[in-house]
């Protein structure tokens, strides 16, 4: 790999609201600079995880190094970071920003500015980045680049004339965009001959080499086979491998100031990696580490249990490994009467929870049960100090409770004015209190105080369907507020199933109880005996239903080929059984534990 003088290095990330085309734009930039061959091309190439490709979203930020020959005849080294757009992953965005001097702000020419457009722009501004605005998808018939450019000027405060129209689909505008990056993004400023400081801004676990750390060298340089020190963790290592992604992994001998690359330094113990740590060299160590990252606090909690109790240790090891790659989730051991040993995990949001579960299942081949997500409540008991709970099971008896407080968020919702009515109704139903409202042309921004537990699961989907996809929202935690909350318990054939308990608002308890028992009935297959499902508040049963007994289960004909067919069916049935959990004598399938999420769907 050729080396470049520092003044010809440009580090930038691409930020936007979800789905505005960041990853597709990264594809085009890689085309334009010849980073990938014709044969390797594929849509959203940087979304390399299976879940990313299936869901069509970016979860992990990714970096690529490209070489671009600019109009001035010089070659530039561009380091691009594609970031996720979903609110749950904004932590990834903040970290990526710390490795850049510039940000390409992408706005969908048909959708205009949305909630994460603003949230991510502010993050970039706070990080002192040069922002290069672009309107994307100008090929769409519904695109209105001029209006959107004006929105960018009005709302974000960037000059509409500087907005570059592009299409990440057709490739229009790539040249202009690259020129703007070269011209406007300042080169990195760190000096080469001072004590080295490199910021670890991402890391993941590789089965062969252990921890791989993505770093941005702020000043000084790191070489292969050099003794280094992790300044916060305090550990010392030797670098065994340095590389950059083009997007292929290419080994390099050193990383100089302003460069981004991956470092392997024989770190096998997971507790030795800290994202936000500073690497310095032993021969000329720096005195102060770089400011790391602010710790993010999980907001949504759920229990994760192995279906097969024997997988508990595996789950524990897998959580540890995944945690290196995603330091934003937390876990601690928890025991459920119904589900046995597992972990209570904290996530940044509901999508984050889903993704973590899916990654554990896929990357570590685990079979898991997730319980319904909940938020962190504050309980004021009649006697003693107030405390926080992250699980309905931890709620004391109602008679011992003075008050329960719930987290409240300030939600910022962007919506075209014709859909405003539906949005207001939705927020009302979710116990929201309107804070203010601002009109920008045909779009409205409303802010609501909403209980977090009303928005964690399906608020986003409901908002999308109420606004035909045009509404978006962002939120931040505001604090706690007292509310009339009760614990809703579920009993299956008389046995309470702690993992199915929910904390709900008293006014919603009756309807939620009825709906939950009905949903559970759909999920619990017929068994050899009738199964009674009851919902209760304290000792009072508020809803009940019954899964009738299975009366017959017979294959009439079993000759010749039927035998093979039957055996395969039975094998499948047995595999399905493995995904069930015995509660008392009742088999409850994995999905049933998430029945609470399906409330309000029918």
């Amino acid at each position, binding site marked *: 790999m050729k080396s470049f003088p520092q003044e010809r290095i440009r580090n930038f990330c691409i930020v936007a609201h979800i789905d505005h085309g960041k990853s597709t734009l990264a594809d085009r930039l890689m085309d334009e600079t010849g980073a990938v061959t014709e044969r390797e091309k594929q849509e959203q190439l940087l979304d390399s995880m299976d879940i990313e490709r299936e869901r069509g979203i970016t979860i992990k930020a990714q970096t690529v190094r490209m070489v671009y020959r600019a109009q001035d005849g010089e070659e530039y080294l561009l380091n691009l970071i594609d970031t996720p757009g979903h609110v749950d992953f904004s932590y990834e965005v903040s970290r990526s920003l710390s490795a850049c001097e510039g940000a390409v702000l992408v706005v969908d020419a048909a959708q205009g500015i949305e909630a994460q457009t603003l949230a991510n722009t502010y993050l970039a501004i706070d990080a002192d980045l040069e922002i290069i605005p672009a309107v994307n998808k100008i090929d769409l018939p519904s695109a209105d680049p001029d209006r959107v450019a004006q929105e960018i000027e009005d709302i974000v405060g960037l000059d509409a004339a500087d907005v570059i129209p592009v299409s990440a689909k057709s490739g229009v505008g790539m040249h202009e965009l690259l020129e703007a990056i070269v011209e406007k993004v300042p080169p990195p400023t760190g000096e080469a001959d001072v004590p080295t400081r490199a910021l670890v801004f991402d890391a993941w676990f590789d089965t062969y080499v252990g921890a791989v750390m993505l770093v941005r060298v702020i000043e000084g340089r790191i070489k292969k086979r050099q003794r280094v020190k992790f300044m916060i963790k305090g550990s010392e290592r030797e670098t065994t491998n340095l590389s950059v992604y083009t997007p292929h992994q290419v080994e390099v001998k050193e990383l100089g100031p302003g460069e981004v690359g991956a470092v392997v330094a024989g770190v096998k113990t997971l507790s030795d990696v800290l994202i936000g740590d500073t690497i310095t060299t032993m021969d000329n160590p720096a005195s102060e580490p770089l400011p790391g990252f602010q710790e993010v606090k999980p907001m949504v909690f759920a229990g994760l249990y192995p279906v097969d109790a024997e997988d508990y240790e595996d789950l524990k090891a897998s959580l540890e490994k995944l945690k290196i790659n995603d330091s934003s989730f937390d876990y601690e051991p928890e025991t459920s009467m119904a589900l046995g040993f597992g972990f209570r995990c904290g996530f940044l949001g509901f999508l984050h929870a889903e993704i973590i579960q899916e990654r554990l299942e896929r990357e570590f081949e685990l079979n898991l049960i997730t319980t319904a997500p909940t938020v962190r409540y504050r309980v004021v008991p009649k006697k003693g100090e107030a405390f926080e709970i992250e699980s309905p099971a931890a709620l004391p008896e109602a008679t011992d409770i003075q008050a329960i407080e719930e987290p409240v968020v300030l939600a910022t919702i962007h919506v075209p004015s014709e859909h405003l009515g539906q949005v207001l109704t939705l927020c009302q139903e979710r116990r929201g209190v309107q804070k203010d409202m601002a009109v920008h042309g045909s779009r409205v921004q409303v802010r609501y105080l909403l209980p977090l537990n009303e928005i964690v699961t399906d608020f986003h989907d409901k908002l999308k369907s109420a606004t035909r996809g045009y509404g978006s929202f962002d939120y931040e935690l505001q604090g706690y507020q007292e509310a009339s909350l009760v614990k809703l318990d579920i009993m299956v054939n008389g046995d309470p199933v702690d993992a199915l308990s929910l904390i709900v608002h008293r006014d919603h308890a009756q309807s939620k109880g009825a709906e939950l028992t009905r949903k559970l009935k759909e999920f619990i297959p017929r068994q*050899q005996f009738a199964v009674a499902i009851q919902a209760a508040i304290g000792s009072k049963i508020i809803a009940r239903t019954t899964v009738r007994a299975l009366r017959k289960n017979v294959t*009439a*004909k079993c000759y*010749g080929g039927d035998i093979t067919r039957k055996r395969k069916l039975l094998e499948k049935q047995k595999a399905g059984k493995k995904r069930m959990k015995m509660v008392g004598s009742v088999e409850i399938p994995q999905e049933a534990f998430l029945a609470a999420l399906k409330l309000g769907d029918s």
Partner: protein
Amino acid sequence: MPTVGLYVHIPFCERVCPYCDFAVVAVRKVEPELEARYVAALIREIESRAVEFEGAQLDTVYFGGGTPSLFRPEALAKILEAATRAFAASTPPREITLEVNPSTVERDRLPAFRSSGIDRISLGVQSFDDATLKRLGRAHKAHEARQTFTAARQAGFGNVSLDLILACPHQGFDAFARDLEEALALEPEHLSLYELTIEAGTPFEFAASRDQLAPPDDEVATRMLEHTAARSAGAGFERYEISNYARPGFASLHNQRYWAREAVLGVGTGAWSYEAPGARFRFGARRMNPRDLGAYFAAVGAGGDEGVESEVLTLEQARGEAIFLSLRRRTGVDARAFEAEFGGRPRKFYDEQIDRLMAAGLLAETESGDLRLSDRGLLLSDTVFADFV
């Protein structure tokens, strides 16, 4: 001496019933050329594949379909001759069955079928209620079934089986009970009572998916099954398999081969063969011919094996099959025979499952470890079987 059963699949039907998922081809009439071509292909297949069962005595023959009785008796006789030759049979097969549908043409051919050596008839009655027959998409009427039965007796068939379907669309319990009485009144030697199965890809499945089939609910269907068991026992029939009932000495020899995991050579489109555990395959093997007539003619019928699917069983699969196929039979699992084959009695492999199923009242166990389904187990047999695969 090892034995083998021969299953001959004749895929032609005058029309295709809406619940059927067999390999069938609808033909208004089987033209002599088609018949000759198919017979030649069958014979070719029997001749080329007999080596798979070398040295085996031909024990049973079963002409199934489709509607094999659409073929002329001479054609079936030719197939039988070829089979006897291929297996160098010293004694004739112990049972030769022909599936017959109640129709005039077939009725007239019964004496000739009898003379060709066929000694058992399986008559596809399905129901004695014309409305039900119509809903099942069957071409015949109830009185034709009775006439065909009488004709079979007159032709000298002393072993006749009737097929009935239970839990048909719109069928109530009483309607089914009447069907059963009518069947018993004819005094057949054997009864097969199959609950209607909705097979994937059939018109019935499509109708069922739109709730247009109106089958009796589970409760009623369960009563039908229970009634069948009680009533047929009262009439002197033994329920020797989940869906099969026979007077003493008339259990189907051919069909029992499937549940006893004995060798069967299946020829014709979509036919399955089973090779019992032995020198060629330690735990047995199954194979299926191509279902498509053209593909069959081109490959298997010409001595090749293109389009053939085969499955070599593993030890665990064979053991699971041994259990669930034995449990389908009244005789159940013989612990000693099981031990001789698998090196341990069922308890050795399935101790916890057996305890659980016994506690649930689904399984009965003898002192020596033999296993049988209880009455309740017969109704929930698939639930029981799932524990053994």
